[in-house]
């Protein structure tokens, strides 16, 4: 292989790592808020991603049927709608299920797992047992080829840009807004936050719904990469928990760093080993790090 060609492959491989990083981070963000900040083990997080993905599918089906000329433009609106639907779903779930279980965090695992099974069957019965893919606008498909032999996937760039904005938005909201202040106050000391006049119940509800809404955005973004089926959510959930736990719960920075490390380990090892071995290698590294640092990369600085 000649040098420029190796450079091309190297560049593309670097991009592959970055785009996996973006995917993992987007998966982990919603959960970082729900699991990291609130301590709710939300096993249905993957299904909220599926809700987002199905929203895009719905958007594409409707657009194709009623306004085929607008197929190039529907996608951004579908993402907003995906956030909205998942947000509403999260809001209802919190009200109906989660708020009764804040004192029993382990039971949230069981309750949300049940919810996830229920949602999967709902998708299967009312949407389709088959995997579906929305029709993507042309500008999202194909590759950007700055020169011969170098192809940068457009959908990868799109997911990266989206992840950047969502992460920046969450960071800003959490550290610069009143809501963020209330969330952080509630997380670090609930009775005290209550005493200072923060409506912790409202805060919890909003936080949970936002976490789910972000999962919806993630799901919408993943339609550009893979397909959507009733059980797609269960594929995402493992990676999402991996990223959040490895990064250390309660730390958004940790989530980002852990997504980056996992993505790089995975994509570099994939290039030099076979796919299955790379997965084994990545998981072993994670397990070893977690054995040395059970609290994750970034421990939260809360007095207990």
């Amino acid at each position, binding site marked *: 292989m000649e040098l420029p060609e190796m450079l091309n492959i190297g560049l*593309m491989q670097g991009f592959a790592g970055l785009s996996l990083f973006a995917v993992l981070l987007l998966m982990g963000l919603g959960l970082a808020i729900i699991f990291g900040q609130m301590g709710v083990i939300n096993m249905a997080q993957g299904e909220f991603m599926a809700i987002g993905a199905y929203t895009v599918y719905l958007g594409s089906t409707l657009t194709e049927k009623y306004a085929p000329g607008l197929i190039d433009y529907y996608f951004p609106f579908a993402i907003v709608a995906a956030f909205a639907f998942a947000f509403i779903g999260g809001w209802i779930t919190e009200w109906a299920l989660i708020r009764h279980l804040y004192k029993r965090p382990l039971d949230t695992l069981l309750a949300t797992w049940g919810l996830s099974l229920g949602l999967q069957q709902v998708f299967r019965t009312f949407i389709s047992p088959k*995997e579906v893919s929305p*029709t993507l606008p042309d500008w999202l498909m194909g590759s950007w080829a700055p020169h011969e032999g170098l192809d940068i996937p*457009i959908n990868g760039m799109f997911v990266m840009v989206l992840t950047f904005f969502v992460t920046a938005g969450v960071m800003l909201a959490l550290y610069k807004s009143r809501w963020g202040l209330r969330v952080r106050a509630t997380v670090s000391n609930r009775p005290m936050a209550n005493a200072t006049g923060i409506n912790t119940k409202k805060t919890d509800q909003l936080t949970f719904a936002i976490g789910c809404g972000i999962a919806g955005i993630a799901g919408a973004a993943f339609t550009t*990469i893979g*397909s959507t089926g009733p059980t797609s959510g269960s594929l995402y959930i493992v990676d999402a928990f991996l990223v959040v736990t490895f990064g250390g719960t309660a730390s958004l920075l940790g989530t980002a760093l852990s997504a980056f490390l996992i993505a790089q380990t995975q*994509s570099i090892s994939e*290039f030099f080993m*076979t796919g299955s071995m790379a997965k084994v290698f990545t998981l072993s590294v994670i397990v070893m790090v977690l054995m040395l640092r059970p609290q994750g990369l970034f421990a939260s600085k809360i007095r207990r």
Partner: protein
Amino acid sequence: MKKPKFEFQPNADRRQVLQGIVGLAIAAATMRAGAQKLPTSQVNTTKLAVTDTEVTVGQLHSSTGTMAISETGSIQAEQLAIDQINAMGGVLGRQIKVIKEDGASDWPTFAEKAKKLLVSDHVATVFGCWTSASRKAVLPIFEKENGMLYYPTFYEGLEQSKNVIYTGQEATQQILWGLDWASKEKGTKSYFLVGSDYIWPRTSMKIARKHIEGVLKQKVVGEEYYPLGNTNFNSLINKIKAAKPDLIYAAVVGGSNVAFYKQLKAAGITADKQNLLTISVTEDELLGIGGENTAGFYSCMKYFQSLDNENNKKFVAAFKAKYGPKSVIGDVTQAAYLGPWLWKFAVEKAGSFDVDKIAAASAGIEFKGAPEGYVKIADNHHLYSKARIGQMLPDGQFKVVAESPGLIKPDPFPKGYQ
């Protein structure tokens, strides 16, 4: 028709025989295609669920769980065949009644339900299973309880049983001719093998590699497996780009399939620059992948919905009439449709519902009305069938571009390929 006459009246003279024939003819004309011709006690000596008017069969697929995606088509096709057979008067004059069981994509559940169908329902035969794992789970039960299974999926081979009729292709039927075609028609000399990480892709790729290196005397430049459900193929795609194969040979399944083709397209690997031949994409998969992501790539199967023959036109029309105009028919769906028909012919040839007699009668059974064209059951209980290459179209259908000249003999234990 004559046989019972001679048995009951061994010394009958010509006149009596004549009377008997006339009588039988009248009986046949006045009664519904008669169970009277073949009394239940005679066609059913092993206490199967067969009465004078009805025969009960089982259907064992996953209608829930991960595999529901794939198995739904098979369930529908088998039901369609059974309906059509019933409309024609059933099997030996008996209407087919179906007991549907759900394996729920869980192999122990498959085993349990198989046992229930055979031991407590005494079904005459079972149409079912899809994944190799589910078939392996029920096989010992079918052999022990002496049941009959019609299995529709193309699979890795290395199996043969008196109690199973394999209506899909075993690995060599799907792989060898397809590779020969690529090498000859597309002039490919180097190959990159990609599969999901479980028994079927691994066995298939082993056969493919032996064929490429041993028979075609060409080169395999890469062989990769990814876990089921994996959705990130960017590193793999870069490896493929570095290896520059003439042909990507793919057996990626399930949700991974969609991610694989979407990402190939996003990385600029399209049909105008790269040959790709797969053994795991049918019309069903294309529905999920989206034809625009794969247009121009090739798939090797024995059946495509677009196949141009009279049988298939009738089959497709009947399927769409029953399940909606948007439904698609993939390779396995068609193979599942063959099951009930092949069983019917075997029962009629054997003149009995007894499993032993059906198993013995099955070899040599022909089905001229099969949508894929003429098929025949071989001695090893697999089907002689053709292989075909379909080119993927943007609308999710295939254009058949090549067809093996004759029927390919099934060879589940290929010598030199293990």
